[in-house]
C-alpha cells in the first residue's frame, strides 16, 4: 500500500470550507458519542473520515444529515450557522448522504427510489416518463446503465447494484456536500474502481465530499485530507500526502496493534476437531471444507458478498447447507434450522445484536436464559439452574441489575448478554459475525479478551469479521472467502495485504494446515 497512490490528481485544498462543524458534542444514554469534534470540508475536496467502529463516524454523519441534533457545537454552511430539525432540511440545504444501511424500498422501482421525495411533476401528477428518463441519465452518468434500468424493482437487484442505486440517488440531489459512508463495502474491485473514478469526477465538478471508510487503499487513493476519530474525539486532521497507513493506524487505535489483542493460542491449547465441514454448499456457497478445533479461533475474512456471513448462517441452519456433510464432535449431524443448531449446542452472535440477538424490552435475566428455556420443556419453571448472576459475572457484564431491560445497556454490554445466553447452555461451538461492530474501543478489547478466554476454555470459535485488524489480531488461522468459496487459508499473523489478495480473488492462498 502506497501512502500517496494517485496524488497526481488531487483536489483543491485552498479556499474557504463550505461546511464546518465546530465543537460538536453528542451524548446518548451512557455514552458520549462525539466529544467536541470539529471538522470541515471545502468545495472540490475529498475529506476522508476514518476511525474504528464506534469511534463516532456515523454519529457525526447523522448530525450532518439532520437525523440527530448535536447537544453542543455549531454547524456552518457557507459560513452561516444552520440547524436541521428533519433530514429533509439537510437535503434542502445541499447536504446529501449515502448511508451504509441501504435506504431503499425493495418493492419500488429504481427510478422511484432515486427520486423519492422529489418526483418530477407534470400537471399535478408524477411525470413517470421524465422520472424514467432522468434516472436513466443518472445511471448512464454513473456508467452502470447496462446493469440497472429505471424500471427494475430494487428487490430484484443484487446487493452491489443496490449500492449503485444508492449512489445514483445521492447524486440526483444537486448537492454541495456529499457524505459517503463505507460506499464500497459491498462492491467488487471493478465496481470500486468505477466508484473511485466517480468520486474524482464529482470532486472536480466542485462537490465537497466526505468519505468515510476503513479501507486505507481507497482513502489514500481519493482523499485530500484525512480526519481521524477515536472514542468520539478527534485525534487530528492530516494531509493525505503527509502520512502513511501505519501512521493512521497508530492514530486510530492509539497504541501499536500487537499490544491491543490477546495472545494467540499455543499449540498445547488446541484440542480435537469440534466442527468439520466437508464439501458444504448451498445457493451461495460451494465446496466448503473447514475444520474448527477446540481451543482455537478461526477467522473468516472476505468482502461483503463473498459468503463470509453466509458461511456462518449455513452452519447455524438459517440458510442451511444443501450439500456436503457436517460433523460435530465427531458425529455427523444435519442442521436444517436454528433450532437444530441450538440443540447441538452451537452458539451464534452477530453484529445485529438488536435484530438477531436480543429481546430489547426484556430484562437481562430473561435474555440470558432465553436459549436455556428454549431447550427445556415448554411448561418447565422459568427460573432455576444456571445461575444468571454467575453467567453475568463470567462475561463481565456491567448492568444496573439483572432486572434491567437490555435496551438500556451499552452496545458492549448488550453483546455480552448475547454471549452469556450461549454460555448458559454450554455451547462449545461459537459462531461470531462482526462481534464488536458498533462497540466502543474499550468494550471491544474486553470482548476480544472474552472470546480468547472462551477459546482457552476449550470452545471452538469461528469468527467472521469485516475488520481486518480484528481478524488478524484474533485468529489462530484465517480462512478467506471469495465468491462463495474458501479461497485460501492463512496462518496467524498474516498481513492485510495477504488477506486482501485472497479476498479479491487475485491468487491462491498458501495452505498452512
Amino acid at each position, binding site marked *: 500500500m502506497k501512502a500517496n497512490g494517485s496524488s497526481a490528481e488531487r483536489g483543491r485544498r485552498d479556499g474557504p470550507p463550505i461546511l464546518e462543524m465546530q465543537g460538536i458534542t453528542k451524548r446518548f444514554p451512557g455514552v458520549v458519542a462525539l466529544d467536541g469534534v470539529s471538522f470541515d470540508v471545502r468545495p472540490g475536496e475529498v475529506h476522508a473520515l476514518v476511525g474504528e467502529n464506534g469511534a463516532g463516524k456515523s454519529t457525526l454523519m447523522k448530525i450532518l444529515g439532520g437525523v440527530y441534533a448535536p447537544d453542543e457545537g455549531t454547524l456552518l454552511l457557507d459560513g452561516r450557522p444552520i440547524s436541521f430539525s428533519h433530514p429533509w432540511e439537510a437535503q434542502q440545504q445541499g447536504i446529501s448522504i449515502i448511508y451504509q444501511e441501504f435506504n431503499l424500498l425493495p418493492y419500488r422501482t429504481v427510478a422511484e427510489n432515486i427520486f423519492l421525495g422529489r418526483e418530477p411533476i407534470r400537471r399535478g401528477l408524477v411525470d413517470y416518463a421524465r422520472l424514467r428518463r432522468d434516472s436513466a441519465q443518472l445511471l448512464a452518468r454513473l456508467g452502470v446503465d447496462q446493469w440497472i434500468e429505471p424500471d427494475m424493482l430494487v428487490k430484484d437487484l443484487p446487493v452491489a447494484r443496490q449500492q449503485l442505486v444508492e449512489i445514483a440517488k445521492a447524486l440526483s440531489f444537486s448537492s454541495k456536500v456529499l457524505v459517503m459512508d463505507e460506499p464500497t463495502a459491498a462492491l467488487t474491485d471493478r465496481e470500486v474502481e468505477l466508484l473511485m473514478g466517480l468520486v474524482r469526477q464529482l470532486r472536480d465538478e466542485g462537490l465537497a465530499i466526505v468519505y468515510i471508510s476503513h479501507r486505507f487503499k481507497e482513502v489514500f487513493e481519493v482523499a485530500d485530507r484525512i480526519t481521524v476519530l477515536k472514542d468520539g474525539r478527534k485525534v487530528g486532521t492530516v494531509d493525505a500526502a503527509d502520512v502513511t497507513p501505519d501512521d493512521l493506524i497508530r492514530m486510530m487505535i492509539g497504541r501499536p496493534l500487537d499490544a491491543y489483542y490477546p495472545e494467540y493460542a499455543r499449540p498445547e491449547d488446541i484440542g480435537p476437531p469440534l466442527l468439520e465441514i466437508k464439501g458444504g454448499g448451498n445457493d451461495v456457497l460451494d465446496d466448503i471444507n473447514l475444520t474448527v478445533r477446540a481451543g482455537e479461533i478461526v477467522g473468516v475474512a472476505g468482502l461483503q458478498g463473498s459468503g463470509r456471513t453466509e458461511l456462518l448462517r449455513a452452519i*447455524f441452519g*438459517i440458510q442451511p447447507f444443501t450439500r456436503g456433510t457436517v460433523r460435530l464432535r465427531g458425529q455427523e449431524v444435519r442442521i436444517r434450522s*436454528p*433450532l437444530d*443448531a*441450538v*440443540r447441538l449446542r452451537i452458539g*451464534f452472535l452477530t453484529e445485529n445484536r438488536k*435484530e*438477531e*440477538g*436480543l*429481546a*430489547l*424490552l*426484556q430484562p437481562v435475566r*430473561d*435474555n440470558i*436464559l*432465553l*436459549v436455556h*428455556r*428454549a*431447550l*427445556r*420443556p*415448554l*411448561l*418447565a*419453571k*422459568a*427460573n432455576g439452574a444456571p445461575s444468571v448472576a454467575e453467567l453475568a459475572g463470567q462475561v463481565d457484564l456491567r448492568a444496573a441489575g439483572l432486572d434491567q431491560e437490555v435496551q438500556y445497556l451499552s452496545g458492549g454490554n448488550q453483546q455480552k448478554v448475547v454471549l452469556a*445466553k450461549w454460555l448458559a447452555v454450554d455451547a462449545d461451538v461459537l459462531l461470531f459475525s462482526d462481534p464488536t461492530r458498533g462497540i466502543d474501543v474499550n468494550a471491544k478489547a474486553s470482548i476480544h479478551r472474552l472470546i480468547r478466554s472462551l477459546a482457552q476454555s476449550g470452545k471452538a470459535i469461528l469468527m467472521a469479521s469485516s475488520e481486518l485488524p480484528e481478524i488478524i489480531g484474533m485468529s489462530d488461522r484465517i480462512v478467506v472467502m471469495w465468491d462463495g468459496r474458501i479461497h485460501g487459508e492463512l496462518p496467524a499473523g498474516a498481513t492485510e495485504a495477504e488477506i486482501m489478495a485472497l479476498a479479491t480473488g487475485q491468487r491462491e492462498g498458501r495452505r498452512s494446515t
Partner: protein
Amino acid sequence: MPPIFVVLLVICVWISFLNPRFATVPGIMSFLMRAAPAAILAAGQLFVIVSGGFDLSVGSLITLVVLGSSMLIGGDPANTPWVIAVMFLIGIAVGVFNGAVTSWLKVPSFITTLGMLVTLKGFALLWTGGAPRGALPNNFRVFGRNRLSGVPLLDEVPYAVIILLVVAVVATYLLHRTGWGKQLIALGDNPRAARLSGVPTAKVRILAFVASATSAVIAGILLGGFSGVSTNVGDGQELGAISAAVLGGAKLLGGRGTMPGAIAGALTLQALFTLLNLLGWPKPLRDGLQGVIIIGAVAYTAWRERRS
C-alpha cells in the same frame, strides 16, 4: 404499581361513594361475577398479544359455544358434561388452526383470526338457522349465574368468581413463571432473535392461540349461563378483550404485558360502566367514553416510553 390498579381503585371508591352497597362482600361478588367473562377473555387474549398477534376470533367462538351448546344439549341436562367437553375440543381446534395458519402460512394473525371470526359466526348461525334456538339447562347455566353458598367469611361466592380466580392464577403462572410464557414474550419482542435463540416459534405461538381460544370457551360457558342463548352474545367481545389488555399495559405487537394488568384492565372497563351507569349515562355514551379512555391510556403509555 402499574397505573391501571390506581385507576381501578379510584373508580371503585367512587362507585362505593354513590352506592354504598358496592363496597360490601355481596356487592363485590356480583361485580366480579359480571366482569368474569371479560376478564377471562382478556387473560386469554394477552397470551396472543404479548406474542405479537391478535385474536379477533374469540367473540365468534363465544357465540358458537353458546349456540352450539344449546343445540347439542337439546334440553337434556344429561348431555351437559360431554357437550362442555366438545366445546373445549372445538376451542382447542380453533386455537391450533389460528396458530398454525399464522406460523406456517405466515398469514398475519389479524387476518387469520378475522377470517375465523367470519367463519365461526357463520357456522354458529348455520347450525341454528340464524335464530337463537333451544335453551340451556340449569346444570349448564349454573356456572354463569349461581353461587356457592356456605363459604366462610364470604358467605356466597359465585361460581364465575371462583373460575375467574382459578383462570387468573393459572394464567399468571403460565405467562410469568414458565419457560413458555417467557419465550412467548421474547417472541413478541423480537421474533427473529427468538428464532435464532432456538425458540420453537410455531409451537410457542400455537399454544398462545389455544390459550386464547380456551379462554373464549370458558367465557362462552359463563355468558351462556349468565344471559342465556342469543346470536349476538359474542359480538365485539374481541375488541373489549384487546382494549382490556392494552389498558393493563400490554404493548400491541408484542413484547410487553402482565397478566394481573390485563385482568385489572377488564375489571376497570366493567367498573367504569358501572360507574357511568350510576351517574345516569346512557349505554351508547358509556361506549363512547370507553373509546376516549383507551386512546388516552395508550397515548399516555406511549408518552411515558418516549420520555424515558
